[in-house]
């Protein structure tokens, strides 16, 4: 695996201008996700990606989302979110100071020829993906990486034929202070 510093420098190469990541800590109560997504719908903010799960403290959940800042200024998104009573904390993560990861599961056609099959295995190796299952004609792969890296992997797999693909939406945490 790449070290954290490598990860940071990789992030540095791809600062994302249009999509910004916001991490919110919310009360772990029924309906809170509906409040957040309802707010986005009502105010016309576009969500590019969304991931929800409980935190280490079970009273709270974390909602990580990527917002399209072309649809609304990020400041307005954050301020409106802050007005939701169940939203406890909001952190806007700059790509330079955070690590983002996303998980992809994908079923791909394993190649007809031996040569192509080797190409596929090399690709899996290059991207440090895992083969979770395989049949005569298909492979089930998993890859956890930066979202742009998943995009790239997905692109490369297309030449083999993607049967089914599922991504989780990104999660993020800030880098540690030096």
């Amino acid at each position, binding site marked *: 695996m790449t070290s954290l510093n490598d990860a940071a420098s990789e992030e540095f190469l791809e600062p994302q201008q249009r999509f910004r990541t916001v991490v919110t800590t919310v*009360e772990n109560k029924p309906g809170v996700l*509906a409040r957040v997504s309802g707010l986005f719908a009502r105010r016309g903010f576009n969500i590019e990606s969304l991931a929800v799960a409980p935190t280490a403290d079970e009273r709270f959940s974390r909602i990580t989302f990527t917002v399209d800042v072309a649809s609304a200024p990020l400041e307005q998104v954050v*301020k409106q979110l802050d*007005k939701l*009573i169940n939203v*406890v904390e909001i952190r806007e993560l700059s790509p330079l100071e955070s690590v983002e990861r996303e998980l992809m599961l994908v079923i791909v056609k394993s190649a007809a020829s031996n040569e192509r099959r080797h190409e596929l295995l090399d690709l899996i190796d290059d991207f440090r993906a895992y083969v979770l299952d395989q049949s005569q004609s298909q492979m089930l792969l998993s890859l956890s990486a930066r979202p742009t890296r998943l995009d790239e992997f997905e692109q490369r797999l297309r030449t083999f034929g993607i049967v089914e693909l599922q991504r989780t939406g990104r999660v993020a945490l800030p880098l540690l202070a030096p």
Partner: protein
Amino acid sequence: MDINGGQALVKALEHEGVEVVFGLPGGAILPVYDPIIESPIRHILVRHEQGAGHMAEGYAHATGRPGVMMITSGPGATNGVTPLCDAYMDSIPLVCITGQVPYPAIGTDAFQECDTTGITMSVTKHNFLVTEAQDIPRVIHEAFHIATTGRPGPVLVDVPKDIVDPNNPRSAMTWYEPNDDIMELPGYRPVTDCDPQLLRAAAQLISAAKRPVIYAGGGILKARAAKELLELAELIDVPVVTTLMARGAFPDSHELCLGMPGMHGNYTAVTAMQHSDLLIALGARFDDRVTGRLDGFAPDAKVIHVDIDAAELGKVRQPDVAMHGDCRVVIAALVKELHDCGGRDAQPDRQAWRSQISGWQERYPLVYEQSEPGERLKPQYVLEVLRDSTPNDTIVTSGVGQHQMWTSQYWRFDHPYTWINSGGLGTMGFSVPAAIGAKVGKPDRMVWAIDGDGCFQMTAQELVTAATGRIPIKVALFNNAYLGMVRQWQEMFYDERYSEVYLSYEVPDYVKWAEAMGCVALRAEAPEEVAPAINKANEINDRPVVVEFRCERGENVYPMVPAGCTNSELVVDPSQR
């Protein structure tokens, strides 16, 4: 003390100091209505749940205390959505208690079940679905806390029947006195005061401005900051415009008052803002009805923006100094800062600006042409007579449309909390129930509901509530037989093609209708009948009165900024062109 959830709910309302609840019972809320019989809380039985909500709004606006409505599940709750949205748009503190089907039945499409918290999520500041009887006192306390602090707004508490029904073991609970310490609101931290650095920056901008205008919004009234506003304006000698939501926040008779800005604002208020080099926006939100086309709004003005809601700062217009805080606290601090910086003497000479303003005031006053003999009444004339025949502290409510704009223009609001209308949502039918709520809250004050014939037909049945409840409001019904504002737009922007706007002078017969509802009913058709009818209405104090004024159908509201135009393209009365 072991009691049931229904008793706990009523006791919790008493604990919050609630003196009156506006509501209508039904199946799911039945168990809560039983302990109301023993409670000192006054219950006003409405004829439609929308009326309960607008009454609670009128009560809240007139008294400054949160209004409370209580309604049942399903259709009761959906009928309550309009006033909740109205209160949300106008930041009115409101607590709405809704019945819900028993908790185990939720999600089964039970009789009179609807997803009340889901439906009202986007029209409330917050809502709760209470699942345990034991939580009731805490949640009610949280609801009042949220409704009344920060930017006020409506909060809904949805209560499943099983946790309030004494026949259900799930309603058993042990009473406790709720207080701020037991609230579970980790994400709610309303601010009040602001950064002192910003006060200095604001004071500097003010002292440098040659053509400043104070743009006072409804937040002044919510923060109860009328006194501080007056101090600020007089200290720096800067003219004030009061938005539709802020009428009365600064006295209309004060020489610094320019009146209402916006689409149907005074020429001087609109134009002074357009020419201004500094807008001091206090509790205002740069509503589209105030700004007109945004890219042409007050193009040379720097902006100081004070608001309790951080999301308003920069939402529409980017301020030069953004101050997040309570208007009363921030204005008081700003006044002190300005005193420290030399007070009035440190302000530049603004004689040129003053003369420019008084020039506009002289040239473009509000005008209308008096009706010719045989013509129907001019609504502006009726309003002037009504204004001059009622006490200065009369509370005036209004519906939405032409009559609302004329009232805001022609009334003279010299006291805060005397003007109650539906600004943001523009809810037709607001006037009569809001007046009832205001009268319940301020029984010693005269309350006039100004209404149009279109609006009146939407909520008039609440006059039955007023008559049976001995709530003696007075209604001035401006009957011009049209949905007047829509008619005006069709005349001006749709080539006089009138589509579905004609109502009728004769049907319904408003006098008979009002009498059938237990009101005294009067009608005035000629100018000389106006004052006697009003004087007669003013003498009646044991029941509601409706005075129908037969008005000219073709009268338009001027000035007017046509939709999509900048405020520099204000259209004045034909006689001033």
